[in-house]
C-alpha cells in the first residue's frame, strides 16, 4: 500500500537559520503519526511544507502519493489542516463557518447545510450552532476547527499542536475525538510538544530535534531504546531517595536491591518503566537544559 506521507532528504532554511536538515520519514495510510519535539525543532515548518504552505529548499515530500511541490493543487484536494492558531471565523456562527467551508469545498448550498448539521451534532456543538464563534470557549473553538477539517473527510488530517492552550478536560475530550476520527480511515499527522499526547494518540512517534528525526518508532519501542526499568527507593515521605537502573532480569533486580540495601536506607521500593519523558530528555537537546514540563505536571 502506498504510504500516506513519504519525506526524503527534506531541508529548509529561513535566511541563514537552518530549520530542517535532511528530514526522512514515512507515514503509513491510516496511521496516527506524531511529530514530537521541543519549540523550534521544526515541527510547524514540516507541517507547512506537507500542507503546501511553504516550499522546501531541497528534498521531496509526497502526500497521498503526490509531490507537494509539483502538484500542490491535487494535494490540497486530499488534506485538511487544523493549524496552531485556530482557523475559525469569529464573527460568523458555528453553523455559518461550516456552511461556508462546505461551499468552498464544492458542496451545493443544501448539501453544505446538511453536512453542517451532521458535523455540529458529531462535534457536540448543536446547542451553539447559531452563536457567534467569538463567544465560544477554547475547547469549543478547537472542536469547531476540527469539524471544519471534516466537511469533506480528508485522506490525511494535519494537526499542528491541536491541544495547546486547552485545559486538561478539554484536552482529554479532544483526544477522544481525534481517536474516533482516526478510525474513519483518515491518516492523522500531528505535531506536539506534549509527550503524553504523543503517547496517548500516536501509533508511531518521530522525535524531532534540531531539524532532524533523532528517533522513530512506537512509544514502547522508544522507551525500550533507552534501556530497562529503574528501581527506586522512596523514603517514608515519598521523596526519591535513590534509584538504580536494571535490565529487568531476576538477577539484575536482586543486584539492584543489594545496592539499595547497602545504602542502609529504610523506605519503599518501586519499579519504574521509562517514561516518554526520559526518552525525550535522553534524545533531544532539551535534556541539556531545564526540561519542558508536560501539561499535567504544570497543573499538578
Amino acid at each position: 500500500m502506498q504510504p500516506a506521507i513519504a519525506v526524503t532528504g527534506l531541508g529548509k532554511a529561513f535566511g541563514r537559520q537552518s530549520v530542517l536538515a535532511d528530514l526522512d520519514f514515512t507515514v503509513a495510510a491510516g496511521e496516527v503519526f506524531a511529530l514530537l519535539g521541543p519549540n523550534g525543532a521544526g515541527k510547524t515548518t514540516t507541517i507547512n511544507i506537507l500542507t503546501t504552505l511553504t516550499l522546501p529548499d531541497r528534498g521531496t515530500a509526497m502526500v497521498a502519493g503526490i509531490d507537494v511541490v509539483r502538484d500542490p493543487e491535487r494535494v490540497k484536494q486530499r488534506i485538511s489542516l487544523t493549524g496552531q492558531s485556530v482557523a475559525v471565523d469569529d464573527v460568523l456562527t458555528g453553523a455559518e463557518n461550516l456552511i461556508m467551508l462546505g461551499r468552498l469545498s464544492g458542496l451545493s448550498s443544501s448539501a453544505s447545510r446538511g453536512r453542517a448539521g451532521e458535523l455540529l451534532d458529531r462535534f457536540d456543538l448543536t446547542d451553539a450552532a447559531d452563536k457567534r464563534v467569538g463567544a465560544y470557549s477554547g475547547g469549543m473553538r478547537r472542536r469547531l476547527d476540527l469539524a471544519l477539517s471534516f466537511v469533506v473527510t480528508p485522506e490525511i488530517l494535519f494537526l499542528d499542536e491541536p491541544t495547546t492552550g486547552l485545559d486538561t478536560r478539554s484536552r482529554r475530550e479532544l483526544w477522544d475525538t481525534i481517536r474516533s476520527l482516526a478510525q474513519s480511515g483518515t491518516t492523522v499527522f500531528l505535531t506536539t510538544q506534549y509527550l503524553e499526547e504523543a503517547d496517548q494518540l500516536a501509533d508511531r512517534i518521530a522525535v524531532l530535534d534540531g531539524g532532524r528525526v533523532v528517533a522513530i518508532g512506537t512509544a514502547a519501542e522508544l522507551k525500550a531504546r533507552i534501556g530497562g526499568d529503574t528501581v527506586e527507593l522512596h523514603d517514608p515521605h515519598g521523596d526519591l531517595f535513590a534509584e538504580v537502573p536494571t535490565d529487568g532480569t531476576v538477577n539484575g533486580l536482586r543486584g539492584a536491591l543489594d545496592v539499595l540495601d547497602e545504602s542502609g536506607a529504610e523506605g519503599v521500593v518501586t519499579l519504574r518503566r521509562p517514561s516518554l519523558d526520559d526518552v525525550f530528555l535522553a534524545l533531544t537537546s532539551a535534556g541539556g537544559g531545564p526540561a519542558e514540563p508536560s501539561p499535567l505536571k504544570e497543573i499538578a
Partner: protein
Amino acid sequence: MTTFAPAVPGIRPRVSGLTAESVFVRRSLRHSLRDGESLLMAILLPVMLMLLFTFVFGGAIDPSGSYVDYVVPGIILLCAGFGAASTAVYVAGDMKAGIIDRFRTMPLRASAVLTGHVVASLLRNLLATGVVIGVALLVGFRPTADVWGWIAAIAMIAAYILTITYLFAAIGLAAGSPEAANGYGFIILFVPYLSSAFVPVDTMPTWLQWIAENQPVTPIIETIRGLLFGLPLGSQAWWALGWCLAILAFSVVWGAWLFRRKTT
C-alpha cells in the same frame, strides 16, 4: 451522534468559476453588518462632518450660503476614505488569523478572500454615500445635473471607492496587525483636506496650491462637482480616471506581491 458518516475519505473538488469569490463576498458583507459600530461610524462621521462644514464653517467660508453645494463632493470622498479604511483592518485581521492558512490549503484561489473584502467595501460605501447624499439634499444640496450627470458622477464615485479600497486592502496586507493598518489608514484620510474638497485651491499659499492642484483627489472632486452641476470638465475627468487607474493598478500589483510574500 449517529448521523455522522465519516465513511471513506473523499476528494475535494476544485470549486468552479466565481464560487469562492461569491462565498467570500457574502462573508465580508456579514462581517460588515455585524460590525455595527464601524458601519455606523462610516455613515455617521461623514454626515456629521458635512453638517459641521455646512453650518459651522460654511458661513465663514462662503457667506452666500451655497457652501453646501461646494462641499458635498468632498465629503463624499472623505466618507469613501473612512469606509474603505476598515478594509485594511479586516484584511490585516484575516492575514493574522489562522483562517487564511485553512483557505490556502484548500483547492481554491485564496486571494478570493481579498476580492470579498473589496466588493463588500464597495457596496458598504455606496450605501454610506447614498445616506450622505440623502442628508445633503435635506440640508439644501441642489445639484443641477440630469440623470446622465448623476449616473456619471456615481460611476466616478464608485471608481474612486474601488481604487481606495484596493489601496487599503494592500495596506492591510503590508501592515503587521489590524492596529497598524488602522494607523496607516489615517495618513491617507488626510489627503482630501489638501485638495479643493473644502476650499478653492487659489485661497491656499502658493506652495500648497502646487500640492493641491497636482494630487489625485482634486481632479476627482472637480469631476464629480462638474458632473453634478453641469460645469465644463476640461481635462479634469481624464486626470481623475488616470489617477484612479494608476493607483488601482499599483494597488493590485503591490497587493498581489504582498499576498504571495506574506503567504509563503
